[in-house]
């Protein structure tokens, strides 16, 4: 499958983007905007992380794990097992109740509020509920992620159509989010997360509203991005995808880490 993906991705990437990028390496472009500098090669470190909602509800329960820079990780588990909670901790949408979350060498618990935007610019995130800006067109939604970094208008005008083409949204760039189908909105969210070429890419159920074919296309995209050195964390329910990719699988259940295997399937025992 991975070879398949590669082949198709190479044929897809006839877009002239790589040619234009000569002169600046991808590395340098990322560093200019991101504060993520994993010192020891670990992009994400969870150390005894517990997240409680209110008094009773435990979202995550004493999770310890580490994700290396450049890894591709599936986060699986039943509904309500804590996958989104895991992801929200990574982008400091909220703080852990206990334990340490380290992303790109930065301890998020100690990070000041004013630094958070710079953390997030270094992370691309596909949200489970898309989180598109309702009043803006698709183009503007994607461009916004570049605007916040102070990217030059010329550069924005180049990158946005590129990523929209890659996600199959070229002909919808002037539509508003509520004028798109569910799957199209999801792809906009993916495009926005990708456009910045982040060092860490997080995707919460990025194929939940997509048909199998489009899902595979998105997976191929994620895989290619991962091959350029980007760490990818993807929460998913899609058994087929996970089984086909045979990547590292982190399984949660009731907030607890129940499995963490390299080259694994969705479930331990195939049904």
């Amino acid at each position, binding site marked *: 499958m991975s070879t398949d993906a590669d082949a198709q991705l190479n044929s897809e990437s006839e877009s002239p983007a790589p040619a234009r990028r000569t002169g600046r390496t991808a590395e340098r472009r990322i560093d200019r905007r991101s504060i993520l500098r994993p010192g020891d090669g670990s992009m994400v470190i969870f150390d005894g992380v517990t997240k409680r909602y209110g008094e009773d509800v435990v979202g995550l329960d004493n999770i310890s794990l580490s994700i290396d820079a450049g890894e591709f990780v599936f986060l699986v588990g039943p509904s309500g097992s804590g996958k989104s909670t895991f992801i929200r901790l990574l982008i400091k949408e909220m703080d852990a109740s206990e334990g340490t979350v380290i992303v790109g060498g930065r301890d998020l618990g100690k990070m000041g509020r004013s630094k958070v935007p710079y953390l997030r610019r270094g992370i691309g995130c596909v949200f489970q509920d898309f989180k598109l*800006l309702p009043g803006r067109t698709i183009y503007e939604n994607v461009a916004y992620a570049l605007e916040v970094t102070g990217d030059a208008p010329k550069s924005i005008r180049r990158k946005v159509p590129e990523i929209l083409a890659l996600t199959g949204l070229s002909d919808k760039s002037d539509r508003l989010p509520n004028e798109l189908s569910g799957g199209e909105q999801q792809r906009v969210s993916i495009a926005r997360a990708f456009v910045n070429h982040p060092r860490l890419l997080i995707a919460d159920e990025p194929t939940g509203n997509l048909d199998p074919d489009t899902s595979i296309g998105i997976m191929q995209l994620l895989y290619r991005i991962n091959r350029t050195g980007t760490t990818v964390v993807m929460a998913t329910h899609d058994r087929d995808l996970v089984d086909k990719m045979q990547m590292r699988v982190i399984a949660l259940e009731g907030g607890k880490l129940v499995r963490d295997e390299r080259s694994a399937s969705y479930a331990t025992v195939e049904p």
Partner: protein
Amino acid sequence: MRLGFFFREAIRSIKANVAISVAAIVTVMIAVFILGTFIPSYLYVQSTVNQQKSRLDIQVYVADAAPQSQVAALQAQIVALQSQGLIKSFSFISKTDALNQFKARLNDPSILTLLPNNPLPASFDVRPADPAKDGQIATALRTSHAIDTTMPGNGISYAETTTNRLLTIAQFIQYAGLVLIAILLVAAILLIGNTIRLSIFARRREVEVMRLVGATNWFIRWPFIIEGIICGVVGAAISVVILWIAKILVVDPYVSTSTGGLTRDSATTIGFGTLAVILIVAGGAVGAVGSGFTLRRFLKV
């Protein structure tokens, strides 16, 4: 370049949220309109009252028996008070002048020729700089021996009652007016802040998304502030136009044709240009502060 981006964002947001922008503009408009009606009205009434106040003269009656030197001394005293700034102006009314003034009030003045002598005393007609200081002037002059203490007020009559009454009215209008304007000002600021708060509340999810995508607080805030300024200025400008139309169509004709007491005193009020500038600047400022301040709540975490 950044400013250009923020400005475009603000315009975009105004267009995308017409209902909200209109609400904000209407609020500013109403608030500014009320202020724009009250401030000049207040200043006008205030100026009218002040004019009336300045007409309260003090009568200092000079005894017939007083020697010329004492009268001169009294006049010197008055001049001294004038140079101290307590007295604005004064005039001397001789016994003859006083009798003439009295005659003018009688049906058949000829009967006064039957009087053996002129019963009316001469007097100084003193116009105080500030009617509230009448008492002080009276006390200062009372030392003079030239004064005819048989006359009303022991020779220095300054219409204590009238003065007090007028001063009370003046004070009442002054304080009540100031209080009302202060209330309106506070109300205007609260209302505008309120509206902007609501408008940002309606877009809190949008702000949340912006933050999740890596926008800094100021990156989010500037377009809102600019939007606030635009709405504030537009609202205020609409008000100014309405006020101007009202001035042209209603106030100006009334002033020029009226023979009534209120207008022919040519009491002054604030110039329309100044007022317009103040109102528009205030509208913009309140809009900016309202947006910037309210956003703080949604930019936490």
